[in-house]
């Protein structure tokens, strides 16, 4: 048996059947479900008279279009003003009951963004295959699970067969060598990686993130990195299992206990790429050269270090790239050559499955403490990733720091990451956002998104424009 990458190992362990044409039937251990991509799948099951193959492997939670103000949330379903959002959430509840699927309902304390909830509950375990009808399922790869987004037909397929029909991806290794400078976070690392390889750089690959800088990240930081693997074009991102992984999982509600835990740990320790494993592509980055990052355009690859400038389209020789830059700057209402620090913000959003876990909130609170949100900033909000994150933050008093500084403290959900609920960015407004996508209209029709780390977003809220957090005294 030759040497294998981590991806090879998990793939091989889940291979039910290899078809002659290269497609394979892969067994799925965990299926996560939310309200937006599941109704049509359940509808399909019903129409065909099928039942879930293994109902207990599913975990459902509404997150995308639920309200985040306490007033609305306290009213339950009735608090959802948008009729379509209400129908989706209600439909999820009904489908889960009908098909005997475990759901953390909207006002359960454990509810939250599906990719925050999975790891938090221990429903994400190393070596698992995990799928969800959501592209940021790659997040779960931080725990050494093979996790990726699927479409609604595949949601139905997994429900009905516990399998996915797939072709194996190629292996890519992204190695971040050396140590990160102070003030540089997981978010900056992954934005820098995307800046380097582009949003299509990982297409067709599963990316394993490795190297000293990745190993030194916390599990939550690793989730931030894997979360954005999809923005680099890769359906899945992976990080090898180490002591931190095991420590993170131990004692979580879904984690095995006792004898089973010991056996699991033995198996999970094998979840690393063999030393001589072959990758189809290797990309190396030097951690020390990574600065805090800010996106200036309408694709995550349109990113620059905070000390830099927006590129000048005139300087771009490739005509397609030049046109893309011009189109982006036109939409963003920004001029080429402008220093990143001169970009002014109208709005700040701290949340999303990229950066809404407790460490993210601590990082933001540290910057905000004792300061006030700039007058020019119309709305600054913090949306915790789950009810448990919110509870923890409140126990630590973080909410008071935010509220005193003038940030809104909300209930958990996807919120302004994709603006499917009432939290929308106004047309023409610039938002410093800790989310993962800066596409046109992503945070609201005509809205202009700048992706940054929680600390950078917090600092932008205080100053009204981007600042280099390394220059702040914190």
């Amino acid at each position, binding site marked *: 048996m030759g040497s294998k990458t981590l991806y090879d190992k998990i793939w091989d*362990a889940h291979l*039910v059947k290899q078809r002659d*044409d290269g497609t394979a*039937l892969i*067994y799925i*251990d*965990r299926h996560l479900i939310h309200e*937006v*991509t599941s*109704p*049509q799948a359940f*509808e399909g099951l019903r129409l*065909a008279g099928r039942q879930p*193959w*293994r109902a*207990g*492997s*599913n975990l459902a939670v509404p997150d995308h279009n639920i309200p985040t103000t306490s007033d609305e949330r306290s009213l339950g379903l009735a608090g959802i003003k*948008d009729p*379509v959002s209400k*129908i989706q959430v209600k*439909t999820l509840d009904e489908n889960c009951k009908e098909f005997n699927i*475990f759901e953390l309902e909207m006002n359960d*304390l454990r509810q939250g963004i599906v990719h925050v909830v999975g790891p938090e509950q*221990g429903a994400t*375990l190393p070596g*698992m295959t995990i799928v969800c*009808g*959501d*592209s940021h399922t790659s997040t779960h790869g931080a725990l050494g699970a093979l996790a990726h*987004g*699927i*479409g*609604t*037909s595949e949601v139905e*397929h997994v429900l*009905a*067969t*516990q399998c996915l*029909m797939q072709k194996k991806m190629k292996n890519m290794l992204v190695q971040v060598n050396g140590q990160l400078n102070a003030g540089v976070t997981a978010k900056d690392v992954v934005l820098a990686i995307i800046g380097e390889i582009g*949003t*299509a750089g990982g*297409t067709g690959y599963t990316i394993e993130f490795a190297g000293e800088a990745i190993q030194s990240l916390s599990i939550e930081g690793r989730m931030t990195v894997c979360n954005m693997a999809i923005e680099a*074009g890769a*359906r899945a991102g992976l990080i090898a299992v180490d002591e931190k992984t095991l420590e993170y999982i131990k004692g979580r*509600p*879904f984690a*095995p206990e006792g004898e*089973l*835990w010991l*056996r699991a740990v033995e198996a999970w320790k094998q979840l690393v790429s063999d030393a001589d494993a072959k990758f189809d592509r290797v990309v190396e980055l030097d951690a020390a050269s990574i600065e805090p990052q800010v996106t200036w355009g309408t694709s995550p690859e349109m990113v620059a270090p905070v000390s830099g400038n927006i590129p000048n389209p005139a300087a771009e020789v490739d005509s*397609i790239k030049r046109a*893309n830059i011009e189109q982006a700057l036109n939409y963003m209402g920004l001029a080429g050559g402008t220093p990143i620090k001169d970009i002014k913000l109208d709005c700040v959003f701290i949340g999303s499955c990229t950066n809404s876990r407790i460490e993210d909130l601590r990082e933001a609170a540290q910057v905000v403490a004792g300061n006030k949100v700039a007058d020019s900033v119309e709305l600054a909000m913090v949306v915790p990733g789950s009810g448990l994150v919110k509870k923890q933050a409140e126990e630590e008093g973080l909410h008071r720091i935010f509220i005193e500084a003038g940030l809104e403290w909300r209930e958990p959900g996807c919120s302004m990451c*994709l*603006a*499917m609920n009432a939290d929308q960015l106004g047309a023409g407004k610039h938002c410093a956002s800790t989310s993962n*996508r800066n596409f*046109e*209209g992503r945070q609201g*029709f005509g809205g202009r998104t700048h992706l940054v780390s929680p600390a950078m977003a917090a600092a932008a809220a205080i100053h009204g424009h981007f600042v280099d957090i390394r220059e702040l005294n914190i």
Partner: protein
Amino acid sequence: MKKFVIEKGLVLPLDRANVDTDFIIPKQFLKSIKRSGFGVNLFDEHRYLDKGEPDSDNSQRPINPDFVLNLPRYQGCNILLARDNFGCGSSREHAPWALDDYGFRAIIAPSYADIFFNNCFKNGLLPIVMDRDVVDKLFHEVAETEGYQLEIDLQQQLIRKPDGSTLEFSVDGFRKHCLLNGLDDIGLTLEDADDIRAFEENWQQRAPWYFTPAQNHVNPNNQ
């Protein structure tokens, strides 16, 4: 699923790289719990001058006369000619649903986002990958010739151009079989139900920690 054997029709040139799924169908339309009816909101933000909502009466909305889909010469199109990285963004299937519902049967582009590419096949749409310079040439020909049509023959894996010349394309054998026969993935997989069951039993013995039903994890501290 609709069968795809031979499709002939008018080509719509969408001359823009990295067209993402929000461009194809803006997110406010993803809230529906149905699978159909998205065609009128295909390319909504560019096709209309105002912001569309799921309950808008689309026949009353101001049309953007400059957007390519609205040009008289492209009415009735069913083949989409596109640029690199088409369909990037979300894994949601509304993008192929909207394209299909509008009437598109095939897309020709130099490259696609992974998930979108797969989602197309599952919905009876054929995404064809062509070299960048071939696509470029097609864009020129479409621009020059009003009423430019292509015939796509999946069985032969050929695109027939108006001048009678042909372009070959490759397609995964399994996907081809499914499209040609209009086969649904689930039915196909369930033919292997015995294999799945055998795998599952074995896997459960080796890795029982993955098999506790979610319902059994009740932690009183979290309630």
